[in-house]
């Protein structure tokens, strides 16, 4: 059966539908829309306050499409459409549309994989292809990011499948690493005591996992060390700034010298720097 014949077969029942059938079909659609809105409003009250925004969006969309699909099918059957023919038409159309829009199809399929993977959700901060930002929506073809300088970036789902995605919000805690070079004559154990006492007094820094001062190497610049402290993920940037301020003040107060370069700022993704389990 070619597409034209299929379309003719599909449209044939319309010619036989009487006014009462059209009324019933319209009634189904109206009831469907009303029911959908009612369900959406109920879900909004409960789902929004009990689940994550990402799950809330998915649940609401799934419920909305299911209700609409059922009532549209019911309306069409009132007009005499046979669901088997409709499904066959949908199959033929999807193949035709698929050939015409391979990129969109690829993005759509990638989107399904992404949803299944649960790598990130709405509200997470992620980095993809050197773009960092908060996920504002996860859609069928692309995700939308709001970067930290308030730009709106659309990233096709296909790109997400092919490239590395770093999710900064996946876990509730994150490690702040501050790397530096102490001069060769520094009493490193004493510096360690000072730094541990410094963070123990502040409620922002976690006591477990324990903060640690790693001695990385001795080189011509001095003793390379890395002070690692765990903080709440949501407070990462403020905590890092606070830690650096506190460390500088302590070093100044106790006469601890850093060799040039004074402080090596941690890289973009210091969360996976060695050494730490």
């Amino acid at each position, binding site marked *: 059966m070619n597409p034209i014949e299929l379309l003719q077969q599909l449209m044939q029942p319309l010619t036989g539908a009487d006014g009462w059938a059209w009324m019933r079909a319209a009634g189904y659609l109206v009831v469907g829309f009303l029911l959908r809105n009612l369900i959406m409003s109920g879900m909004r009250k409960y789902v929004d306050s009990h689940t994550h925004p990402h799950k809330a969006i998915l649940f609401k969309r799934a419920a909305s499409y299911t209700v609409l699909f059922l009532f549209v099918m019911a309306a069409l059957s009132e007009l005499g459409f046979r669901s088997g023919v409709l499904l066959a038409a949908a199959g033929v159309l999807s193949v035709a549309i698929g050939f015409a829009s391979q990129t969109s199809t690829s993005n759509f399929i990638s989107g399904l994989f992404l949803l299944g993977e649960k790598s990130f959700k709405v509200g997470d901060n992620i980095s993809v292809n050197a773009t960092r930002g908060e996920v504002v929506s996860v859609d069928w073809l692309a995700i939308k990011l709001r970067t930290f300088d308030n730009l709106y970036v659309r990233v096709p789902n296909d790109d997400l499948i092919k490239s590395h995605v770093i999710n900064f919000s996946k*876990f509730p*805690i994150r490690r702040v690493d501050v790397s530096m070079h102490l001069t060769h004559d520094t009493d490193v154990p004493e510096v360690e005591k000072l730094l541990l006492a410094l963070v123990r*007094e502040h*409620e*922002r*820094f976690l006591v*477990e996992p324990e903060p640690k001062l790693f001695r990385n190497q001795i080189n011509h610049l001095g003793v390379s060390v890395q002070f690692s402290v*765990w903080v709440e993920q949501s407070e990462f940037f403020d905590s890092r700034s606070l830690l650096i301020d506190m460390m500088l003040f302590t070093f100044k107060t106790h006469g601890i010298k850093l060799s040039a370069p004074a402080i090596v700022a941690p890289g973009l993704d210091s969360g996976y720097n060695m050494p730490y389990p």
Partner: protein
Amino acid sequence: MLYPIYEIQLLPKQGVQIISALQELHVFRLEHEWRVFICAAGTTADKVPAAGEAPLFFPTEQIPEHYTKSVVWLTGEQESTLRCYVTMPDRPVIVKPTEPLFIPKDCKPHVYCNLPLQLALHVGNSKEAMHTSFCEPVAKAWFGKNTRSGELCYAFEERIVLEQPEPVANSFRVHAELRIQNRDNVTIKLERINIPTPYLPVYRLDQREYWTVPITISKERVPDELRVHYGKLVNRKHELIEKVGEAHHSLESRTFMRALEAIIG
């Protein structure tokens, strides 16, 4: 019924100082709003309670000049009453014994621990707290098998004790009885316990000590997991018992959310 530990009627521009080991709170009723000024401990007060002691309440009319943070509470209504309640910490608390405890199979020892209380300031009959804070320093910690799975908790330095604690005058800590049941075949080594404090209420016994309901933690043989049961009554002799703090979450909500998580991931 919930009993406040402190209650006062204030006229506009009148306030209360709440002095604790952690900080000073200056709570003022102003013309249109309530304000809480948070200052470092010892900013204005000469006498500061020690850690674990109850906060001191003084009427005041002097707004502090130096404060680290302030909270503005705007209801749009003229409320004149400030009520102070206590609550259990809003996150689970990790407590440790002085040394690891070994509990043989089929044993059911009772141990006790002191936990920090939070002070909640309510205006009028509002069920929502205007401000909640600890009255002594409490650190945050991660509790879990690794940094991926677990939960954010408070870590408290007070150790688990083996005998029922005696009342301490002016204490601002809540006692909890822990019943540990080892139903497994092997001895368990207890190095630290995560107490689910958000699900526990606070009671004041005979106007002098705070207790919460007993918690039973059982290590099951099949399946190999821990179970937590909450008692309904405080297991301590008393003549007068007053509920002074509601649980942050009801137990039903915990069960429901766990079931929901199990279904939807």
